[in-house]
């Protein structure tokens, strides 16, 4: 009853937006599609929500074929596009009422499903949707996508452009929705959000790089990562980049994530090299790989 995708391909003129995408989303799973902008996430969403025909491949959503049973899919999925796409000149309440009516239901009927979210925007229910803040808009859009009690929920970059507090709240809401028998497919360019999903698929240039739980994906990281810090960040990065044994160098907050190409790497050696480059306050310590590191490694 979840989502099953096999060998979906789609190309726009010269760009291959999706190439042989296959994956399964189990019922009631919170599945994340993680990838940079332009990876093909939105195209995949549009194919699965029956807005776009795929060139090749088959897929089912909630047990319905995306081509033959598209009408049934439209009744049983909720879709929240990346761009806010509710009627800006209708009020919060009118928007919700409108979408409930289109799906042949009422706000009252499924109120328990949206209650947690709706109470937060209820004080503004007479305000026009266009006048809401970014986080409020997302909550309203989620309410509208949920109003018909969908079996599968598609969320295309729901937290892009939303402040950190609202993002956190949003993911908590998704976790709660999962308890209510809803399969959720969510896409995001933020690697930190990936850890909150049950399983994730890393996607780039229309290809899936890896599918697994966030923990397993991190474990697959082949090398030991070191946090490196020094007094001059810019010089540190350029020095590491010119170091002959480096494997990868990525800035990561106040540190630089460094991996070495040798198996018998000695941090003291690196420290000596960096000191020879006039850097001081050098710290080198082991750290665990994050999903971001994994993605960078896979995307290399």
């Amino acid at each position: 009853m979840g989502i099953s995708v096999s060998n979906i391909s789609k190309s726009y003129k010269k760009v291959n937006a999706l190439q042989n995408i296959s994956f399964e989303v189990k019922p009631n799973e919170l599945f994340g599609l993680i990838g940079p902008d332009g990876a093909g996430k939105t195209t995949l969403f549009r194919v699965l929500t029956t807005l776009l025909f795929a060139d090749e491949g088959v897929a089912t959503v909630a047990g319905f074929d995306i081509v033959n049973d598209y009408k049934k899919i439209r009744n049983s999925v909720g879709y929240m596009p990346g761009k806010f796409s509710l009627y800006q000149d209708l009020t919060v309440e009118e928007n919700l009422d409108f979408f409930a009516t289109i799906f042949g239901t009422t706000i009252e009927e499924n109120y328990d499903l949206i209650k947690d979210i709706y109470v937060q925007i209820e004080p503004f229910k007479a305000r026009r949707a266009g006048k809401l803040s970014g986080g409020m808009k997302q909550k309203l859009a989620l309410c509208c996508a949920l109003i018909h009690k969908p079996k599968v929920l598609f969320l295309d970059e729901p937290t892009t452009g939303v402040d950190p507090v609202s993002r956190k709240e949003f993911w908590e809401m998704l976790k709660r929705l999962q308890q209510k028998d809803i399969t959720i497919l969510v896409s995001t360019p933020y690697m930190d959000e990936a850890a909150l999903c049950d399983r994730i698929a890393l996607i780039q240039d229309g290809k899936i790089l890896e599918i697994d739980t966030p923990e397993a994906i991190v474990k697959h990281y082949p090398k030991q990562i070191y946090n490196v810090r020094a007094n001059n960040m810019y010089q540190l990065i350029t020095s590491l980049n010119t170091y002959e044994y480096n494997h990868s160098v990525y800035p990561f907050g106040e540190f630089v994530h460094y991996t070495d190409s040798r198996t018998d790497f000695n941090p003291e050696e690196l420290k000596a090299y960096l000191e020879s480059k006039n850097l001081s306050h050098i710290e080198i310590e082991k750290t665990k790989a994050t999903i971001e590191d994994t993605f960078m490694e896979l995307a290399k």
Partner: protein
Amino acid sequence: MLPIIFVMPILQLVILSNAATFEVKNIKFGYIDNDHTSTSRALIEKFKASTYFNVLTDFPSERLASSEMLNGKIDVVLEIPHYFERELQKEKHNSLGVTVNAIDGAAAGVENVYITQIIQRFNKNLKVDLLQVSDAQIQPVTIESIPLFWYNQTLNYKTFMVPGILVLLVTMITLFLSGMNIVREKEIGTLEQINVTPIKKSQFIIGKLFPFWVIGMGLLTVGLILARLIFNVPMVGSLALMYFYTSIYILVVLGIGLFISNFTDTQQQAMFISWFFVVIFILMSGLFTPIESMPKWAQIVTEFNPVKYFVEVMRMVMLKGSGFNDILPQLLKTALYAFIMNGLAVWSYKKIN
């Protein structure tokens, strides 16, 4: 938005109906009187008395008159030759030089007619004055025509224009609004949200178009009230028939608007295409220029112009009092057009790419 939809057309109706007139008035008139006799002065008096000619300038020479014409200071120059009166008495006929600025061909034609009429009338009176007894026997029989202008007895230009301009407004507003509407939803992304819902194509389209149908009918009502109150246009025919025809006509326009909307991605594109059609429809509708005087191929093209039928029907019903059977051909063609355009629009609207 709603005030704009109603206030702008009302202003247009009031302004255009008063301004867009084919009546040629205020003709800037100049003359060269080489004769300086009582007859030549009497002729010029006739022009002075006419309400159509106003600025009168006496030029001493033709060269001066020509240069004034070149500067656009005068439209018409009348040249009275030397010995005009003497020749007239002796020879019983004479000629006058009339020069008309014909940059605007239509206006020049009308001016020429006015001038000819004044001179003819002057000529007739002159005959009586100059007639001598011996001439009485050989006076030619003159045939005089007395025109009767049916359906618009005073040839009031507004009576003719107001129904036409009303048509123009109903067409423009409904076409632009419907043409931009679905494209706007494409632009702001709401169409994507709608497309994943189970709403049917026909439901969506009816929902989109019905408000514009109501607005179109509202505009017609406002326009008719203004036509009656401000312009005192006679409404001989049945109002119900006008509304019935308009209700079908608006469907054609909405169908065209929707069709444009389906094939464009931005409001700008939709606007340009709508303008393209509106300009062609209006200039080829018989609103400003009679269709009968267009070349054959253009007349065939006008058969596909819904505005033409609307203009015809409005004028027929309002001014002539035509009944249902009289407008039946236009009605059937419009209904067929509405059916085809809306069919195409629904067919071309796709929820899936």
